[in-house]
């Protein structure tokens, strides 16, 4: 197998296990994290800080190379401008996350739990993504690839 594909496969497995071990695949845990004015469970903040603690220092060191180890170039987001799309999109995402308790990674991983709710959520999410990605775009507001 192509080495980049093998890396993607392994990274996907590690990512999923990290989400599961960290508590992100349990919607109760997510909603308790978001319930700042109720019985707040701040655990999931440790998932984010743990991930950033690994990624942030290695980001600089890693991207100081001219090209990645296996790929011909870097595929990194270059945009720095704040636009309405970013703001509206982030707010809409938050509403869905607060209603369902899944963000995209856990939604995909949780499909394998066999839970009906997780499967319905994941299908609807992929439909939503496809609608945005496939709709015709006016040239003057072409968004370009985002970071995620």
């Amino acid at each position, binding site marked *: 197998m192509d080495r980049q594909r093998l890396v993607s496969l392994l990274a996907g497995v590690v990512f999923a296990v990290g989400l599961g071990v960290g*508590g992100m695949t*349990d*919607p*109760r845990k997510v909603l308790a994290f978001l319930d700042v004015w109720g019985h707040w469970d701040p655990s999931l903040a440790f998932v984010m800080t743990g991930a950033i603690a*690994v990624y942030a220092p290695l980001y600089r060191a890693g991207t100081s190379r001219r090209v990645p180890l296996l790929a011909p170039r870097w595929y990194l987001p270059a945009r720095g401008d704040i636009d309405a799309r970013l703001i509206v999109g982030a707010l809409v995402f938050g509403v869905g996350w607060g209603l369902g308790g899944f963000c995209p990674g856990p939604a995909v991983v949780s499909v394998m739990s066999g839970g009906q709710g*997780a499967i319905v959520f994941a299908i609807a*999410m992929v439909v939503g993504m496809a609608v945005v990605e496939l709709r015709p775009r006016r040239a003057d507001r072409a968004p370009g690839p985002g970071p995620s």
Partner: protein
Amino acid sequence: MTEFSPLSATIGGLLIGASSVMMLVLNGRIAGISGVVGGLFRPATSDRAWRLWFIIGLLGGGLALAWAHPDAFGPGSSSSLPMLAVAGLLVGVGTRLGGGCTSGHGVCGISRLSKRSMLATVLFMTSAAATVFVSHHLIGA
């Protein structure tokens, strides 16, 4: 109510960070899940293969969790199926409009000190917390 679990949460975070570093240093890619999945639908893209392999990896990891650590999924969501369908749609549309989710903006973007990602993360965290406040404390029991 759930129990505070800083240790397992940190271990999970370290794994997510390690996975994201692999994708960056080896493949030159940002491990943002909404971008990885959403990119499958972009027309004229020649890079579907790595996306599909990453998603197969996520599903494989999910299968491993279901087998070895089913508690990771809890009892599942308590929301109704129509509500989950609406929520999923909002997450799909919102993350693709906003160019990222918890991983791409929240982990990778913040680590890169991207202003867009920092703002997006503050906004989606705030709107998610506000949504839970409204649905649990104002409308719900």
